[in-house]
């Protein structure tokens, strides 16, 4: 457990679409090994036995139409064109 793991914050900032400043990147790269070392505490637990979770199941709704609230949803959209949500270019 002594080998500290390295997480490359840059990789996960790309996957999670959050740009990080160099300073943020440095802080995270410094903190992550300690946090992971703590998380690795779980490797001590024997989880070979399968435990069935008792969860509720089969919660469905009926196939009936409610009135659309589209106008109030569009009210909070920052950039619109006509009734379209306006996004940036794709490529």
């Amino acid at each position, binding site marked *: 457990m002594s080998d500290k793991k390295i*997480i490359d*914050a840059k990789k*996960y*900032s790309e*996957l*999670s*679409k*959050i*740009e*990080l400043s160099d300073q*943020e990147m440095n*802080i*995270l790269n410094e*903190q*992550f090994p*300690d*946090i992971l070392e*703590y*998380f*690795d*505490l*779980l*490797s*001590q*637990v024997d*989880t070979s036995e399968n*435990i069935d*979770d008792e969860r*509720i199941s089969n*919660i469905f*709704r009926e196939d009936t139409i409610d009135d659309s*609230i589209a106008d*109030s*949803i569009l*009210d*909070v*959209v*920052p*950039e619109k064109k006509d009734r379209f*949500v306006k*996004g*940036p*270019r*794709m*490529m």
Partner: protein
Amino acid sequence: MSQLSSQFEEIKEKNQTINAYITFSDLSDNTSNGKLSGKTIAIKDTISTAGLRTTCASKMLENYIPPFDAHVVSLLKNQGATILGKANCDEFAMGSSTEHSAFGVTRNPHDLERVPGGSSGGSAAAVAGNLADLALGSDTGGSIRCPASFCGIVGLKPTYGLVSRYGLIAYGNSLEQIGPMAKNVHDCALLLECISDYDNRDATCVNTKKIKYTEHLDDDISNMKIAVPKEFFGTGTDPKVEETVRNTIDKLASEGAIVEEINIESIKYSLAAYYIIAMSEASSNLARFDGLRYGLHTGKSKDWNELFSNNRKSGFGFEVKRRIMLGTFALSSGYFDEYYIKAQKVRSIITNDFKKIFDKFDAIVGPTMPTLPFKLGEKLTNPLSMYMSDIDTVSANLAGIPSISVPCGYSDNLPIGIQIMSSHFEEKTLLNLGSKIEQIRGFDVE
């Protein structure tokens, strides 16, 4: 109304120092008559309120006004409550001190240099500082109980599925519940009665028999079986906290409760399991904040990829970014089995261990927080030490069981809370024991 208006002005004045509220309501007259008529309430800013700005204490939602009410908010309105405003918290409920807010820290009314706890710190400070009669918080890993303990009030995290999450902006959605916060157990029970209502818009909400919690506060506790896990008094526990909590447990024993010290080995893994699961879920739950449909929109970008990255860079604070990064890591291929899956398996073990305890005992008791309220900024630069504050609270969230924090004493003029847990949907037991503690602890909360 005029009395309420002048009271409202006083609250706004007090808020200048406490900073319990992010947004005040327009104090619209609630004409509904119900159990909460005449009561004022602060609502944590992670809970959606139609027409009233809901920010999650984040720059991302600085100007977001939801077009709908959370189910609990509709219920409060029907019961005649007067909503005063939206309470400050850690951004997206990620924190244990309410220092991670884009709208400034909330101060503890007992000591303005100390944190109120978190993440529902604004809710707790509002009640403790007389800025509201009642408050709603949300609790993913202790976010109701921690600030309740630090601010010397009562806070209850309900059983997962008792209260609808519809309208609660998700952080760790398999863990969290909205819950009541109040000065005393009676008001807490009353508020729980009002918000525990089946809602078919939340598929995880359970349709259970309605219970009048306020009618069970004085039930006899003699012969009630109470377990005290050694793990809740671990090495990081402040001796002053331990002493006060143990004294209270002794008093419960002298009231006829049967107290037994036990071991729950798996508790020591709960914090790591909790953080892996909560962060993983958060990384997905917070993906929707890209600035297209609502929220912060930074303007021109060369393509969608850059726009999303810019919006999210500018909208999220550093703690939120840290947790999204770690959660993204824990779910990514190559690490998924080692972290996410492992944490879920450990969660099952913990849940199972608690279940076994509740076959024999009615309640589990220990401290809510391992320490007294800490100084502002004290843990801000060391995230792991901040995470450690949740060591005694997270297991209830993992197991989905209800848990309450009730003030049980003071040290250095700072409040100490005792935590009680019970089996699924046994909130009645928590409130019953909590009420007894109020009677035997030897002081009143003003």
